[in-house]
């Protein structure tokens, strides 16, 4: 795994955790929560390197 890939994975992990944090603690409207969840799905797959 190249260094660039690792940097991108770290970025993806930070975005994943930020969105998850928002979903759990910040978002109040259901539609916003659903939007957060939909963002999490591809991010989780990318973090696990599943394509």
């Amino acid at each position, binding site marked *: 795994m190249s260094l*660039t*890939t690792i940097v*991108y994975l770290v970025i993806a992990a930070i975005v994943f955790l930020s969105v998850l944090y928002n*979903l*759990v603690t910040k978002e*109040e409207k*259901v539609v916003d*929560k*659903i939007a*957060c*969840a*939909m963002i*999490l*799905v591809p991010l*989780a*797959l990318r973090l*696990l*390197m*599943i*394509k």
Partner: protein
Amino acid sequence: MASNVKKKGIISTCVILAVAIFMAVYAGMSFNKKRNFVEDVVTEGSAVTKTMKLSTYNSYLANTFGDVDIYVLEGEEPGGQALILGGTHANEPAGHMAAIVMLEQFKPTKGTVYVIPDICKSGLSHNDPLEGTPQYIHFTTADGNVRTFHFGSRASNPIDQWPDPDTYLHTSGDWEPLHLPENAQTTQTLSGSEVRNQNRCYPGIANGTLTEKVSYAVTNMIKTLNIDMIIDLHESSPEYAVNNAIVAHANAMEIAGMAKALTLEEEKGIAIKVEPSPINLRGLTHRELGDYTDAFALLCEVGNPSQGRFRGYTDEELAITGKDPCYKVASEIHNGALLYVDYSSGDFPISLRVARHIATVAALIDEMGYEYPEKEIIIDNVPDYDEMVAADDLGLWLR
């Protein structure tokens, strides 16, 4: 009251998270299954005399996803050598399937045929996002067995090399050109995603990206074994100009022209074009393998409605039958001037597309033997074009 609202919020968050986790697990399992699915290539009863690993020609490929099998079909009498590549673009299934039919059916009596049906195995292991293409295609053999094959992506899987650069700078690495035309460049800038396009990475770099490593191995294999002819099998959108065609390097132009005129058109009635390989379109098999090796470098194209932009609903049936109402409409506008294939029948089945590839490969190999008797390859049991088209059932030619 406030605690009720808070409780409702927690419940909705949990439900939404549970649904997201279910979707991630379901999609992940599906993608993971495809990534690890192994096609059953049947060598029992075929003329395959041995198999080799592609990493034989680039040690950096060992234990990677690109280390595929090379199937060797060796005749009893020595003669010429040809290499057939299938699956360069995994969303062009006739190229992949034609190579599999050839390795299961061809019986060379003179010379040697090398077949690599999944040269871009990484591309076969995933699909292009938002294209709606199937993950697999299925065929029923004469024995009633259902065989499953990948339908993949045009490019290598980003798992194997990620991220793409903004701009891909194609270079020829450490290779020294043997037949570079005058005024030809050896480098080229391409869009970033082309770094995962197997047919933009030749002649390859030994320790480059996975795609470049595979290309390097192919170039090195041709040079090491002194292979005389390389044929790369593709498909193209019906609205793409290079269609139902042989693309030939200058060194193979005469062979392609004679095969088209004498065998394919006059003898078999197959309309086909011959296109010259552009000298400054770098990274392609028909360009680089002609410039950097002594092999006759050729690429075959045939129309594939399942990859075209005009297509409608996309599924396995479209990939196999080529039946698409949108292309039918397109074929009726301006007397079919929008398309570069005759789509008046309303379909373009994979049996026809594979039959065209097989007839073209056989004609090119025959023509090489006529022009260069020391490079003659004689192959028995070549599936008959007319029979394949009439039967319209590719499964009958699979073991």
